[in-house]
């Protein structure tokens, strides 16, 4: 049985989100440009509620530890990118992220009928890349100096998993 559950984000979760988004250790590999105020979080929340790019809360053993969401969902091409953050640092390195991704893929391939799920990761973010590999994502390319971070350009990797990869990995 999964230790992780995905649920809809409530307004009451924003305080935790804001705490994570203002923690440099958490945002090191994220695209957010902090610091973020509660008002900005609130605005983001309102926009997210009406966007197809839905975000879900990750709960591990009943406790909110992070979130995971869709980016650039395109139903005609049956693809989306995803992004994930485990914001509670004491929940890192326990496989929760991997379980959350597995649950989301189950939904994206099994219910939404997508053909492809992709993501970007900093090339230096080895912990995340290993996690994505275990979830079935494959390396598709290296994007040189894709992101400007802390005063310099850094490389990113492009990864993706196809419906057929996912189906093959499940049996």
């Amino acid at each position, binding site marked *: 049985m999964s230790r992780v559950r995905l649920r809809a984000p409530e307004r009451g979760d924003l305080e935790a989100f804001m705490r994570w988004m203002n923690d440099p250790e958490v945002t090191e590999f994220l695209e957010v440009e902090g610091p973020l105020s509660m008002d900005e979080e609130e605005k983001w929340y309102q926009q997210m509620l009406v966007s197809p790019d839905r975000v879900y809360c990750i709960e591990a053993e009943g406790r909110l530890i992070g979130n995971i969401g869709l980016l650039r969902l395109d*139903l*005609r*091409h*049956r693809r989306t990118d995803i992004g994930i953050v485990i914001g509670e640092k004491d929940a890192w390195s326990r496989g929760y992220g991997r379980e959350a991704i597995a649950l989301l893929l189950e939904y994206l391939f099994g219910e*939404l*009928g997508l053909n492809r799920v992709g993501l970007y990761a900093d090339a230096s973010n080895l912990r995340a890349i290993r996690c994505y590999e275990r979830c079935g994502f494959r390396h598709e390319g290296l994007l040189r100096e894709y992101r400007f971070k802390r005063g310099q350009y850094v490389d990113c990797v492009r990864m993706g998993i196809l*419906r057929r990869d996912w189906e093959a990995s499940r049996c």
Partner: protein
Amino acid sequence: MLTGPHVELRALQTEDALLMYKWHNDPRVTADMGPRDGLLATSMEEERAALQRAVGSATERHFIIHARDGGRAIGYAILGRIDQRRASAQLTVVIGEPEEWDKGYGREAAGLLVGYAFRVLNLHRVWAAVPDHNERALACLAAAGLEREGTLRDDHFHRGAYRSSHLLSVLRPEGRG
């Protein structure tokens, strides 16, 4: 532009209001269109408003059908209720010029739109609802590959009695679309 051997389908534009007005005020055309045929007659004003809604809609694609021989506009075709989550859309084909009936134009237009739905829009299912007494439309859609899957009993009132419609659909042949 979708091109077949005998017809071309081009995107609807606002200048087409007069064509729609003409076709929608011809009782021969509207007689067996079924429950969506709400009005006795349609004004230019209403046609213009309908076109404004249709042009650029994310859930409807409207086309004008031209006969390639001579280039005359002979009718329209719609993929409506486009639902990407269900990967489905509703097909409507109307040949608005009665003298162009029974020449195979409708079936060709229907086939082109089914192909468009599967190959361009990436849909899985194309469906239609047709009055069970509209033999011409049933034959046209059957020729485009739509199979009868059910009947909506007495779903509209027409010529003094309740009439039924057939539901038809075609699924994308290969695997999951």
